[in-house]
């Protein structure tokens, strides 16, 4: 089932949660909505589910108006951030709920419910927990129950709100892989909200990066990581080394010194050079575009990082650079930084 979001805006009093958002999700895709808290990603998910209503705009499932239908009628599987399991029901009844509440012509016979729930519990690999109550389960187990419950109504759209937010790192990684496999097995279009970029990049077919109620960029994980469309995306995804600069007559300057870097067509005014730490080389401090003093060098596992204090026009600032393995970097010494791959963004536009 395709999902189309067209020109959706939503305000909460004076706060614009969503500002003219447009999004197309292809059938069978797994898309991650990624952004910091307050970026509007959960609001967008709730609007698609029918738990919130947009002030303006449209939501279409397979081209049909979804806003016409209430959340009851949309047949959307929703996995809540803190699972929202029914605390007074055991696992079996939690999963069976969506079938039990069907009445009249849609009523599901008891035997069919039993079979379907058994099937789902097998699918999420917790059939042995059927008689437990939510309070007796671990976070990962609750997550599986929440997913099985959402899948019980055979949804064609699966919406997940921070599905791994409350889990510890190890369980999270394991469930992530498992969810990806599950998505492949089922005929669903999945939309997942997360603030964890690693999760989004690893799990999703496409990533929607959101900030301040707007979509900043939509693309494959590789696209948003390697060619961020805006300074916000560059900053938010992956590690970023930020170097302030000024564009004058189409050339980059640091103070009065012209830099041997391409201004990438950015208009005159204050700007920032953004680069991934591993795309910045060390060089002779007198020849490199930026130079500074090494404050500290840290090593954890294969990664070495150096804090380098650079004397900027508006006072000194500290950047964190990646240190190659062989490179010997004495603390207190001066070092030059040469961005090899970088993007230049105007400061005004990204403010």
């Amino acid at each position: 089932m395709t999902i189309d979001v067209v020109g959706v805006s939503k305000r909460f009093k004076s706060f614009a949660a969503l500002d003219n958002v447009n999004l197309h999700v292809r059938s069978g895709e797994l898309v991650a909505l990624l952004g910091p808290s307050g970026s509007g990603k959960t609001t967008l998910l709730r609007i698609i589910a029918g738990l919130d209503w947009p002030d303006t705009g449209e939501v279409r499932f397979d081209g049909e108006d979804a806003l016409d239908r209430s959340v009851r009628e949309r047949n959307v599987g929703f996995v809540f951030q803190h699972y929202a399991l029914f605390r007074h029901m055991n696992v079996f009844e939690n999963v069976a709920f969506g079938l039990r509440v069907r009445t009249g012509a849609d009523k599901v016979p008891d035997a069919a419910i039993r079979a379907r729930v058994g099937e789902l519990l097998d699918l999420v690999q917790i059939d042995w927990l059927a008689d437990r109550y939510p309070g007796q389960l671990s976070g990962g187990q609750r997550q599986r129950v929440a997913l099985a419950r959402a899948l019980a109504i055979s949804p064609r759209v699966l919406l997940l709100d921070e599905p791994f937010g409350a889990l510890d790192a190890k369980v999270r990684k394991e469930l992530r892989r498992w969810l990806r496999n599950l998505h492949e097995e089922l005929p669903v279009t999945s939309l997942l909200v997360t603030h964890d970029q690693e999760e989004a990049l690893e799990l999703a077919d496409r990533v929607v990066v959101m900030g301040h109620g707007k979509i900043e960029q939509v693309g494959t994980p590789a696209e948003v990581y390697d060619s961020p469309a805006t300074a916000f995306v560059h900053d938010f995804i992956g590690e970023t080394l930020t170097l302030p600069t000024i564009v004058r007559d189409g050339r980059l300057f640091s103070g009065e010194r012209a830099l041997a870097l391409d201004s990438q067509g950015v208009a005159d005014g204050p700007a920032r050079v953004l680069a991934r730490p591993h795309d910045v080389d060390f060089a002779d401090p007198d020849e490199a575009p930026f130079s500074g003093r090494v404050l500290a060098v840290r090593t954890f596992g294969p990664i070495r990082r150096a804090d380098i204090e650079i004397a900027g026009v508006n006072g000194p600032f500290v950047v964190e650079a990646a240190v190659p393995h062989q490179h010997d970097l004495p603390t207190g010494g001066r070092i030059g930084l040469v961005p090899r791959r970088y993007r230049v963004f105007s400061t005004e536009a990204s403010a």
Partner: protein
Amino acid sequence: MSVADLAPLPAAQPARVIRQAPPVHTEPPLVRIAIIAVALTFLALVIGLPLVLVFVQAFAKGWSTYVAALSDPDAIAAIKLTLVVAAISVSLNLVFGLVASWAIAKFEFWGKSFLITLIDLPFSVSPVVAGLVFVLLFGSQGLLGPFLQAHDIQIVFALPGIVLATVFVTFPFVARELIPLMQEQGTAEEEAAISLGASGLATFFRVTLPNVKWALLYGVLLCNARAMGEFGAVSVVSGHIRGLTNTMPLQIEILYNEYQFAASFAVASLLAFLALVTLCAKTILEHRLSTEH
């Protein structure tokens, strides 16, 4: 805890001696015993002794007087009336309290904080004033008096008035018990239920109600205890018609004022007994509540 207990061990002592962690409470035993003794004595004097005296007085003239006092037609009428009033007003407050707390806890609307304040009003207003309000509204000289008389409807000095006054006084019990719990539980489970295709009614009976059932029962018990014991408001609206509009508390007062101490205390002991039963049920419920959440 003396200073010596906390002093570091001399270095010469063997390393395997483990220093005792100081207990969390640091008051000397004497102080602890004194505090507990004061509390218990106070409880015994102010609550225990009067309660015992009620029963002692009730049986002072023997079983036969006790049974006679309770089988007096006026006494039986008072007991019946009390139970009927309690049953009606508790059921009404069960419904109203549930509706009010559902509205307050699960929805955002204009005037919500005003509604919460209004729910607390019966706690802060004197019951006598509450009773007077109903007399002013429904009494023969009251606002709706002429209309009621024209249609031959009796509210004040009759069962409807007593029920109204009791409902007013006991309204906060159920709502006050439910609102914090419902607010804490939030709306996520309801949203989950609706997204799974449940109707509003199904969501209420399958999700909302089971989640608050013990708190609801607890509120109903407190409400019931107060409904049976209410004196002030009921006294104003009842009119004290013997065998007709006297509830147990009113009957007790009348008997007492007529120097029928044994009979008065007999009815009082029954009322106290009902209260004790409620208290026991409440304790059991509290235990259930604490184990479930």
